[in-house]
């Protein structure tokens, strides 16, 4: 391996990238725009659940129940209607998510110390939002139910019973449960994959189409040197992207950064190299830009978005798919990023992920080199 040859190809690559300002601009601006837009817009937080109320009872007891919903930060009571039909219509027309129906003798049952029923109608189409809304409803009902009992008991018996269990939930790492803290570090990985994989596979596929790749291969440059030099060219762009993304995450989105900067830099380099090698491999396999694009999207963007644990937790996937996620490098990088950003853990916890990321990078490097030498033969 000759550093001089690598250097020569690397300089050529840099010039190549600089000469096409549009692609360069896209490669530098796009991650910024994506991060800003998605970091602020992609949220799975469920609050301000639009709620419609039908109070058939119209008593102070029923109004007290409704006040519980109004007072909760999770529910936003949009108004009151005068029939169950109207509540149902609201759900039908996508106006509301939750309908609360208090039947006529609610107050009577409460006063008599009987079971007081009321109804919640829930639009279940978005199952995730609905499940979370449901758990809020249950928590609220439990809480308020306990209060009602306690006050009734203290009226009857002169003293009340405390709640038997003091159940405290403590959320670690992301105590306010804001989804931006969860989305942004993962987003950094996805954006890097998109930029890196697509840039590499497309640019080199164009060289295949124009035949300049064959010319390069006919020079004394060896395939491994070519792969390395090409990667280094893109790497400079990718490194700038990474720095931008991390800074935006920390300073614009206020995502806590609790870990080690050096570890972040090291693992990002491993990841970037791996993804660029992958892009080179894809372009060598695909040869045309259209196919390189399709294969690129199918093998970089989609898996990193869907199978990395970025949004969809790997634990809820079928076993077969869980096995597949092990060949998605973004899976390891997302875990590492969250570990460094939110948990502040170091190599003692993350070594497995770092090792696998390294394996991926080395394996793809050899595959790409092998593929290029095949072309040479």
């Amino acid at each position, binding site marked *: 391996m000759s550093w001089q040859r690598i250097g020569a190809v690397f300089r050529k690559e840099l010039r190549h990238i600089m000469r096409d300002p549009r692609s360069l601009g896209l490669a530098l601006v796009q991650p910024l725009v994506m991060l800003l837009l998605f970091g602020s817009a992609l949220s799975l937080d469920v609050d301000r659940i639009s709620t419609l109320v039908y109070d058939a009872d119209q008593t102070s007891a029923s109004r007290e129940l409704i006040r519980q919903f109004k007072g909760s930060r999770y529910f936003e009571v949009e108004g009151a209607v005068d029939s169950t039909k109207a509540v149902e219509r609201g759900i039908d027309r996508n106006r509301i998510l939750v309908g609360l129906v208090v039947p006529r003798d609610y107050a009577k049952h409460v006063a008599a110390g009987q079971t007081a029923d009321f109804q919640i109608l829930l639009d279940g189409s978005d199952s995730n939002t609905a499940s979370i809304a449901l758990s809020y409803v249950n928590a609220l009902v439990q809480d308020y139910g306990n209060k009602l009992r306690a006050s009734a008991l203290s009226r009857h018996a002169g003293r009340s019973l405390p709640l038997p*269990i003091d159940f*405290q939930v403590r959320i670690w790492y992301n105590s306010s449960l804001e989804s931006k803290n969860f989305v942004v570090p993962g987003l950094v990985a996805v954006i890097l994959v998109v930029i890196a994989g697509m840039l590499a596979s497309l640019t080199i596929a164009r060289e295949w189409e124009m035949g300049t790749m064959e010319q390069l291969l006919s020079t004394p440059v060896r395939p491994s040197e070519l792969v390395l030099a090409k990667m280094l060219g893109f790497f400079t762009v990718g490194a700038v992207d990474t720095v931008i993304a991390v800074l935006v995450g920390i300073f614009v989105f206020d995502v806590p950064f609790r870990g080690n900067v050096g570890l972040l830099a090291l693992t990002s380099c491993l990841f970037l190299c791996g993804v660029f090698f992958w892009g080179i491999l894809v372009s060598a396999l695909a040869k045309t830009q259209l196919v390189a694009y399709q294969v690129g999207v199918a093998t970089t963007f989609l898996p990193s978005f869907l199978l990395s644990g970025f949004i969809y937790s790997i634990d809820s996937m079928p076993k077969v798919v869980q096995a597949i996620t092990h060949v998605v490098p973004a899976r390891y990088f997302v*875990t590492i990023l969250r570990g460094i950003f939110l948990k502040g853990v170091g190599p003692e916890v993350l070594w497995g992920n770092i090792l696998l990321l390294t394996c991926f990078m080395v394996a793809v490097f050899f595959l790409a080199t092998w593929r290029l030498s095949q072309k040479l033969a």
Partner: protein
Amino acid sequence: MWERIAQIVRKEFIQLLRDRRRRLAVFIPPVLQLMVFGYAVNLDVDNIRIGWMDLDNTPASRNLLAGFQGSPRYHIIALPANEQEAENLLDSGDAHAVLRVLPGFAKDLERGRPAGVQLLVDGTNSNTASLISGYSQQIVAAFATPVVRKQQQNMLLTLATSGNTAGTSMKAPRLNVDTRVWFNADLLSRNYFVPGVIVNIIMLVTVMLTAMAVVRERELGTMEQLMVTPIRPFEFILGKTLPAAFIGLIDMSMVVAGALLVFKVPFRGNPLVLLTCVILFLFTTLGAGLLMSTISNTQQQAMMTSFMFATPAFMLSGFAFPIRNMPVAVQYLTYLNPLRYFMEIVRSLFLKGAGVEVLWHQMLAMLIFGVTMLTLSTSRFRKRLD
């Protein structure tokens, strides 16, 4: 005129279907997305790994453990003995949560004092974390109910024996909420995601095909050759867009068939309304493809540009992330996203069985988008040809 259009259409189909890889590129995405969203990914949380840290170790605390073990959602994977072990479990991500029964749990229960139970949840994934704490609360509440009842009896007994009034009623109201989940009674992610795939696929395939069909000619220099033939710009445009529209319709049928037959997603609306809306949506995507071709000289630029528009359009369509959760400014921005309307229409048609009387706003918006997009792009396209 129709003959010339037919010739172009035929040429496009030959070019598209000649190459095996290009053929795959048209028909693999729908199958792939169906598999992914129907089978692989979901937001349901039904595999919760918890560590059980029992600092009390009494029959009462083991009863609570049995409550968690009885739920199919929970898997107890470790019994950490001290704080350090519990912390390691969460740090490494091996457990989603650690449940800590505080010392004196049984004694406090016995004496009617609040007995301490703590749940430490890994909040890294905020969505999973809120569901886990919700589910755990329910299990703990189920455990508490008989305890409360017993305490009441005890209290009644003490009051009676202490000669308090014999008529004391211990009746206390109980709230019972009867929850009815509509449209997706089992709360399956799949029923929500699979219909949305139709929208993604049509956009992905038709925008790309149209843009590529034009830019390829320009890049290879065959555009000039085409221009010297008697073909008129309008015919050229139709010839380039019709094949894409046709492929889009085929892809859509594949997705609908898969959704209904394989994933058993209910379809409660009118198929004709769906077809009408698809055609309205095609106006928009074909127009977008043409527009993209006018601002790109190479296939790579066309792809980068379309990717730059497609990703935000997809992310802000409400497909995976509810629009109501976005910042208000971004929510207004989504009104400029044609995917948003089509997504609402498709989901309402599948799950809610809504008709035109409910969906006409969205349909009107798509019509406006389609017509504007097509006029804009054709006029720009013709200018560029001259």
